[in-house]
């Protein structure tokens, strides 16, 4: 029983981490709360609907393509809309709101409000010491781990990754040392959107696909990031896993509305008591 | 008669760093009291504690006999203690007149329900202030466009709007050229002589402090190393040692 809770919690937690990473990345580097993050997730899912569901490309190929397409779209948004608002928290938020709204409206225009269905690429479950593990969630988890590993390696060992960390830590000095902020912002936004798109694409077979599907992942990312600390990447990882495990533990006992109330109260408490979250720097 | 301001065994630690260690002094009514010390000596920390921006780790601050230790900066502002800032704080996009008007409004309506009637006697008149600080012919100039020295004067003028009995001045002559410094010195004297305001200032400029202050506290590494009149300080060997290596002329 406990093992099942841990397994479920870990599976959800991994996806939460992927979602939260992009969100916290943009805030850490550009001080913009990307309210459109959920819609990038939806975009990834929609691309999969088109590539896999309608055009028949293999799922394993459709997912990365969907991710890349979303990433490219993110870079476009950054270049055209967000770059001029770097550091301006309020206008940045409103702009993100605008992008979110437009994406939803486009999805509604193209696909309509009804649920999109795609064939399920996997089914069935396997057994881990008595805990039941669905195959599709497993592959999502494997995908998530791969993504996280790649991201970590990028951040740690590539020049661009180093530059990004520098800009997140101290934009002025980084600028003085020759790091060109424009490229960093584009990369950050691009990667964040890529991550959200990949998450959406991976999860497309598992969850319902509608134009408004971005709402809940957005909420989740938001809770995770507050817990872990706005702008902190390790915080996002920690917060994501924590949330996954707690949710899993409480899902059996609490009514879903009450569970949400509790999550938001935790968020409230964290913001009031320790806004920088578990691992973030103070705002 | 109790001292206007009494600092009693004030200490401040930031983790392992001792920024203030058992500092004691008192400022009498009508005095100009100076706190001076080398860079990093802890003067600013002391100032910020008195002004309500930092709580001390130990010790008390008493104003007119009342304990004001740990009070917030705005509560202190309402108690009759004003302050000026080292870096100029004025409303840069507003005219001088508007700046003074705002300061008056803020002083009178400090709380949504406060409605002090415009007490002529206790409150400094905007025109008087403008004249006293050399701003009379600049009333319509934009504050941000004024020369630095005049901006600082405006800052002092605004601080006066709350009719303070004690004025805390944070490096009042920082950033001023020599002639501006002399003007500032005269203004500070006039604050005491004409307006009856007691002054506590924290400064870097040794000659000015020697010239202006009635009593001086010298701090170094957070510790008080000398307290007395300018004459006493001038001949104090510890003080001379502390300043060795920095070029100070004891004017």
């Amino acid at each position, binding site marked *: 029983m406990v093992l099942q809770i841990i397994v479920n919690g870990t599976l959800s937690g991994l996806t939460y981490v992927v979602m939260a990473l992009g969100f916290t990345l943009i805030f850490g580097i550009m001080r913009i709360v990307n309210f459109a993050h959920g819609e990038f997730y939806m975009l990834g899912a929609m691309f999969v609907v088109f590539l896999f569901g309608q055009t028949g490309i293999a799922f394993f190929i459709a997912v990365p393509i969907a991710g890349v397409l979303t990433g490219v779209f993110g870079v476009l948004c950054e270049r055209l809309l967000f770059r001029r608002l770097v550091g*301006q928290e309020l206008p940045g938020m409103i702009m993100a709101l605008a992008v979110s709204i437009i994406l939803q409206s486009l999805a509604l225009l193209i696909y309509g*409000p009804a649920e999109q269905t795609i064939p399920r690429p996997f089914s069935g479950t396997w057994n881990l010491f008595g805990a039941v593990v669905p195959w599709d969630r497993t592959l999502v988890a494997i995908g998530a781990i791969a993504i996280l590993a790649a991201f970590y390696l990028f951040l740690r060992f590539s020049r661009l990754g180093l530059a990004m960390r520098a800009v997140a830590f101290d934009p002025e000095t980084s600028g003085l040392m020759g790091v060109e902020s424009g490229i960093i912002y584009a990369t950050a936004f691009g990667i964040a959107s890529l991550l959200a798109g990949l998450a959406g694409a991976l999860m497309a077979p598992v969850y319902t696909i509608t134009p408004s599907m971005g709402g809940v992942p957005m909420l989740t990312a938001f809770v995770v990031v507050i817990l872990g600390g706005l702008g902190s990447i390790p915080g996002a990882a920690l917060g994501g896993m924590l949330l996954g495990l707690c949710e899993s533990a409480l899902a059996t006992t609490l009514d879903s509305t009450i569970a949400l109330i509790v999550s938001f109260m935790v968020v409230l408490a964290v913001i*009031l008591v320790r806004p920088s979250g578990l691992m973030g720097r103070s705002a | 008669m109790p001292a206007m301001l009494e600092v009693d065994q004030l200490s401040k630690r930031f983790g392992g760093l001792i920024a203030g260690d058992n500092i004691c002094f008192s400022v009498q009514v009508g005095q100009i009291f100076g706190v001076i010390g080398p860079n990093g000596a802890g003067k600013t920390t002391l100032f910020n504690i008195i002004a309500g921006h930092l709580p001390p780790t130990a010790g008390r601050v008493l104003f007119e006999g009342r304990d004001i230790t740990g009070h917030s900066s705005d509560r202190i502002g309402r108690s009759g203690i004003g302050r000026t800032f080292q870096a100029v704080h004025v409303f840069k996009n507003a005219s001088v007149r508007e700046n003074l008007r705002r300061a008056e409004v803020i002083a009178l309506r400090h709380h*949504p329900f406060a409605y002090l009637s415009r007490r002529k006697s206790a409150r400094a008149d905007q025109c008087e202030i403008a004249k006293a600080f050399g701003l009379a012919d600049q009333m319509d100039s934009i504050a941000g466009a004024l020369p630095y020295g005049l901006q600082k004067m405006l800052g002092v003028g605004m601080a006066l709007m709350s009719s303070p009995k004690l004025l805390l001045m944070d490096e009042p002559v920082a950033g001023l050229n020599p002639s501006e410094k002399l003007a500032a010195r005269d203004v500070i004297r006039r604050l005491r002589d004409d307006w009856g305001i007691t002054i506590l200032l924290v400064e870097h400029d040794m000659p000015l402090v020697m010239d202006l202050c009635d009593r001086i506290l010298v701090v170094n590494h957070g510790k008080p190393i000398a307290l007395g009149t300018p004459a006493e300080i001038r001949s104090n060997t510890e003080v001379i040692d502390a300043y060795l290596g920095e070029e100070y002329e004891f004017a």
Partner: protein
Amino acid sequence: MRKIAIGLVIALLATVPWIIGGRYAFHVATMITIMIPLALSINLTLKLGQLSLAQPAFMGIGAYTGALLTMHLGFPPVISILAGAAFAAAIALATGPIFLRIKGVYFVLLTYAFGQIINLIFQHWTSLLGGNNGLFGIPKFSIAGLNLGTIPGGYYALGLVVALTSYLALRLFETSDAGTICDSLNEDEMLCRSIGADAHAWRVAAFTLSAFIAGAAGGVYAFYIGFISPDTFGFQASVDLIVMNVIGGPTSALGPVLGAIIVVPLLELLRDARQYQLLVYGISLIFFVIYFKQGLVSVIERPRKLSNAGHA
């Protein structure tokens, strides 16, 4: 002179529904008058240099309280609406001192979380509030024996009274010492505090007033529609209010009024074509944020200094 001209224009505009007549015209007009206090309510928080996403929650608190007071305790609707607004204000007064210590992005997220909690309570408390199905059967608004439902444009008149009062209250706030102090606090809080300004008290006062206005609008809404449900008081409502403030202009009380006058008919018109509504919203937001930060009101009034709400 300009101000009187604008006042006349708006007064004239206000009579349009009676000229056109018909339920639809009155409906749109009444909704405008309900949205105006709400848009003003967010505007007031912007004056503090903050964005509060809790205003729809306060609206909801005012709506449910007002409705229940009349339905279960038989209070006359006028009293209920005022009591509802007062209750919303009381909650703001209680939470304000805690919430307003937080600034910037975190405040936005805080009020968002708070708004969600209130909304979830609306959804969950089925026995008292009707839960997700909502609260039905709110009686018609009657005052001194006069049932507003029977007069054409009766509710519109009520809405006008509330909207006008809210606008005047905000205008007064803006132009009085309160406005001066709030602007000054935004610009240089340390300076204001050194002169003795109780920054916190001012912020809580403004926040409380904003909740009162939102609660009053909620009460009017409840008695007008006769039915309220949690969806009305969620994040989507905040988005509407933000759009109104961005288009109208956040710097003056007139801005949100203009914003409401423009946006509400659009909302109603596109009610069945949500995708187009969203598209128009999104594009206008982008346009205004980039090119027209001061909003439409700047065309009419000489723009006052933009409060620091727009900048980090």
